[in-house]
């Protein structure tokens, strides 16, 4: 995209990022950029590798390849893939939330927000020693930290529950608290992993407002399945499918991109097969028959009888899984199809028409449908969303 955008306009540059788990390519050669003061949305079907991108950015995973550059407002630059996990929030000021909420559930809301200000307070307390003897400088800092916490509690509309344990909050409030907590670290880039998942429409609207508010001071990288949220608030959308970028641009251009539509809605099976046979991609057909998406199997339970179980379940760490991205990718099929349309005009005349309708007709409806589909998927949260992924990954 905007190659002419000056470097200080960009807060985050991801270049040629790949992440492999054994044989599974969770992210393959992904490059994108996020601009300062914008909301950049990262979307894609389940298992596309969105969370993995976040984990690479925030240092939970070390990427196999690639470079992640963060430019801070003060002009300093950090290569995130080189920083240790905890220094990314501390020094590069990148904060994040988690797809499955991770709060300190036995601590009160206020305490949660105070923990987020750890590094600042640690300095103020003279690495504990001054604080232990009750120096006034720490007391001052402590009062300020409580003020900051109160500020974010008010923004997140949680101030009435400040002294309740975080585990006691309803789901939507927990999501807001997690955002408030991330904001208390004073981030320049905030990474939100499905913040609207499981929220009701009212809560979702409130969340939009909160994000728009945050956007004034902090750039946001957002993973979201709820297309209404994405379309409403994001300035820039990056679409992933099977670890690859299939589209990148403003919300309008992305919603009409046939590859995106195909990735979300799917093309029907026969069509794929015919196209593939026409293209002669045996390899791809074979790969369509790979086993179920093991990510959703009982992957990580510590197993007692290591031997016998492992022959029924494939494990990512054993490196025997094949990447499914090539053949299963809907976007790739769309590409393949248009290629075949171009290459063999005669037999595909009929098909060409079909494709053109597929391209043209959905223009009005597709975005709506995609939104609806993604919506229903994210409503039922993961559980409901999985079958979709399963269908896509493991066609028999």
């Amino acid at each position, binding site marked *: 995209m905007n190659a002419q955008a000056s470097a200080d306009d960009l807060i985050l540059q991801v270049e040629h990022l790949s992440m492999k788990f054994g044989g599974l390519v969770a992210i393959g050669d992904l490059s994108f950029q996020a601009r300062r003061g914008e909301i950049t949305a990262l979307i894609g079907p389940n298992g596309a590798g969105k969370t993995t991108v976040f984990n690479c950015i925030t240092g939970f995973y070390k990427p196999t390849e690639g470079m992640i550059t963060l430019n801070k407002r003060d002009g300093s630059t950090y290569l995130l893939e080189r920083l240790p996990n905890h220094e990314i*929030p501390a020094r590069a000021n990148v904060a994040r939330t988690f797809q499955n909420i991770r709060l300190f559930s036995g601590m009160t809301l206020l305490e949660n927000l105070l923990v987020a200000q750890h*590094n600042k307070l640690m300095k103020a307390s003279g690495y504990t020693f001054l604080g232990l003897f009750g120096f006034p400088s720490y007391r001052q800092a402590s009062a300020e930290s409580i003020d900051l916490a109160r500020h974010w509690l008010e923004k997140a509309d949680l101030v009435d529950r*400040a002294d309740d*344990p975080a585990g006691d909050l309803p789901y939507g409030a927990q999501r807001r608290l997690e955002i408030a907590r991330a904001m208390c670290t004073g981030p320049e880039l905030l990474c939100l992993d499905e913040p609207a998942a499981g929220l009701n429409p009212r809560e979702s609207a409130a969340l939009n407002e909160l994000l728009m508010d945050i956007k004034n001071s902090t750039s946001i990288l957002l993973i979201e399945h709820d297309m209404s949220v994405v379309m409403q608030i994001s300035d820039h959308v990056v679409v992933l499918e099977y670890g690859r970028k299939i589209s990148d641009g403003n919300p309008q251009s992305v919603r009409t991109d046939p590859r995106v539509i195909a990735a979300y809605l799917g093309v029907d099976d026969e069509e794929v097969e015919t196209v593939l046979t026409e293209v002669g991609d045996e390899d791809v057909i074979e790969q369509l028959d790979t086993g179920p998406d093991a990510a959703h199997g009982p992957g990580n339970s510590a197993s007692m009888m290591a031997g016998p179980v492992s022959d029924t379940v494939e494990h990512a760490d054993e490196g025997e899984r094949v990447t499914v991205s090539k053949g299963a990718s809907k976007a790739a099929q769309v590409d393949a199809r248009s290629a075949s349309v171009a290459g063999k005009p005669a037999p595909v005349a009929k098909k060409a028409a079909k494709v053109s309708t597929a391209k043209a007709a959905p223009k009005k409806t597709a975005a709506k449908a995609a939104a609806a589909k993604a919506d229903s998927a994210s409503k039922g949260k993961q559980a409901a969303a999985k079958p979709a992924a399963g269908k896509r990954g493991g066609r028999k």
Partner: protein
Amino acid sequence: MAVTVSPERDVVATPVQRAFREALYAGAIALGLFVLFIGLRTDQNISNELILVRRWGLLALVVVLTAVGRFLYVAYAQPFAASLKVADVATGLLPESMATRFFRLPYFIAAIVIAFALLVLAGSLDGLLGPDLAGYARFLRALAIIYAVASVMFYFRSFIHAHFSALGVSALALYPVIVVLTLALYTGSVAGGFQGSLKWVDNFGIQILIYVMLAWGLNIVIGLAGLLDLGYVAFYAVGAYAYALLGTHFGLSFWILLPAAGCMAAFWGVMLGFPVLRLRGDYLAIVTLAFGEIIRLVLINWREVTNGSARISGIPKVSFFGLMSFNVSDPNYIAKVLNIATSSAYYKIFLYYLILGLCLLTAFVTIRLRRLPVGRAWEALREDEIACRSLGINTTTTKLTAFATGAMFGGFAGSFFAARQGFVSPESFVFLESAIVLAIVVLGGMGSLAGIAVAALVMIGGTEALRELDFLKRVFGPDFTPELYRMLLFGMAMVIVMLWKPRGFVGSREPTAFLKERKTVSGSFTKEGHG
């Protein structure tokens, strides 16, 4: 073998029928369990061969008691406990609780009268009743006093609850004074008061406070940071040997060595911390356990330095901040300086206040730390390590500081222990000690200082009290040593308390900061850590 019965039958069976059936099962199981171990006893005859002694009578007794106990439990105790939870339909009130039925004014008056009468008669009990009954009478007196104290506590329970720390600290501060005064009144002489106080101050007071201190130290590691440490006794050992070795070889004073021992233990805490940083749960547990065993084995086998199992003795006594000493031969012996009668009780009472001071220091530091970023980070680490990292907390140093701080208090307690005993030997630092301290932390309620103190009082005080039941010898014969049953009962008490209160006496957590009002956090929200 299953004891549980099918639900249909349960519906028809009355509690008594069910109890009868369960009692039979329990009896059968008890028979199986005990037939070899109680029914027979392996003994050595004169030619040192093992022979079996039959004890079928005892076996029968135990089996019948088990069955009867089970019967009573299922038939009466269970329905009773259930009924306590059901409110009366008419009044909407819960029935009287066990406690209100147990603590009643007439009983209280009766207890006071009995205690008073027996106290007045104290000197002449043996003469009046003979030694046998006098033993019982003293036991009865102890029970009456305990009951009276418990009733008073029950009556003022809300007051006590509200001012627990203040009351607790003042009670602890006054304890030796009260003991000495009471005994002085009882024996009629001040010297007698001091002499008699030895047992109460040393065996009960100091002993319990040492465990309180250890448990509070371990609480930092387990209760706050959620790191399961089964080798805590190693730091206790490091502290004890640091004082013992440096004190005997270089003659350094306790007041210099106390911080030194603490630092040394903290250093070992970090040494242990490094390899276990990446370990979680049970892996962490076994490595810490192994660490404790390694330290103990080195103490046993490195004879040139530690003197092995032969112990290091002659450890210097603590001085009164260098001003007065507690060695009779010294010119500044406390009795000479203050011009009072010689007694070994002064040292014990001084040690009591010393360990009390150390305990209060531990508590103070713990409470302060919890409100500082490190303390919060520890608790956050216990709740969710990944979230901690996402907030920029360096979990490595956070874990290491938890290990070091906990170890430091262990080291303090260790050097105090060495000073108190006057000798150290590896036998004092076995895994059992770690287990006891861990049990106290968990039984008290992880993270709660008050709960832990109460647990130490109950568990250590309770088992120490068993030593006092000498009159039982008259019942079970002279071979009977109640002390032997001490650890058996201790183990069973651990199980029973845990079953009764899985989260410990105090399951809730005090928040470290508040915006509007301080509300305790219910135990069901707090996590226990993975590491």
